[in-house]
């Protein structure tokens, strides 16, 4: 199931209010902000994971994705801008 980042009713950012332990069924309630990585779209998360798995080689990544090097580099630049914005 896709992790819901935004409220389906008003599109506001979602927060975690309950955590559950699968082993002992302990539940912790509160208001937890999402980690930055989870605030990214699934395809952006996949991109970062692939970037790590390819040891940060954009060239190798581009070859695996069947895309040109500048296309992949531009996607990374876009992602950096988005992360900077989210951090602020």
């Amino acid at each position, binding site marked *: 199931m896709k992790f819901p980042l935004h409220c389906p009713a008003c599109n506001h950012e979602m927060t975690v209010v309950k955590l559950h332990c699968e082993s002992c069924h302990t539940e912790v309630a509160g208001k937890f902000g999402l980690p930055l990585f989870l605030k990214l779209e699934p395809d952006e998360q996949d991109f970062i994971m692939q970037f790590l798995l390819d040891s940060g080689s954009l060239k190798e990544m581009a070859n695996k994705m069947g895309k*040109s*090097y*500048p*296309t992949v580099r*531009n996607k990374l630049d876009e992602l950096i801008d988005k992360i900077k914005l989210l951090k602020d």
Partner: protein
Amino acid sequence: MKTNLISKIFYPFENNTSNFLLILGSCSFLILCFLGYQWEFISDGIIQMHMATYKEFWKVLINNLINTASLSLLMFFLARLIYAKSRFIDVLTVVLIAQANLVCIALALFNPMLKETTQAIIPSMVNGTIKPDEGMLNQLVWLSFAAILALVFILFFFFLLVQGMKIAMNSKKGYHGIIIILMTLLLDALLWITRPYIN
């Protein structure tokens, strides 16, 4: 499958690897040189092609290299001004792929069949003695068709050049496309005037 092929042709810089594009562009460059040598025409400008006298293959190669190198350097200079991380190899690939259209233009305009037609029509046009018989009409139709085809490929040349350059320099601004077209036309005129080619 069909959509995939169309996107690979119309958006080659997004949907093909850099290595594949560079190999394809280099091959089309060599084909253009070979056609220029075989069919005796000169690319004396970025989007100029004219009939010429016979030249050795190395002379045709250098003349085409002048066009490719000058356009690549100009585009690289522009790309570096806009985006500091631009690489020369990406710009060169864009120029080579865009220039693949020149092969199609050469095939349309300088093929032996059309050359024969042109040579038959030109004297009549110069003397003003075109007779509207059926044979002449057919030749004119073929000539017009080839000219329209060449025009389409020139437009596609600019479409690919702008699209590829905008990716190479990570630009999303529309006016950058206009600058690319204007600079290319300016370089074309400059090459046409200065004629740095080997005769």
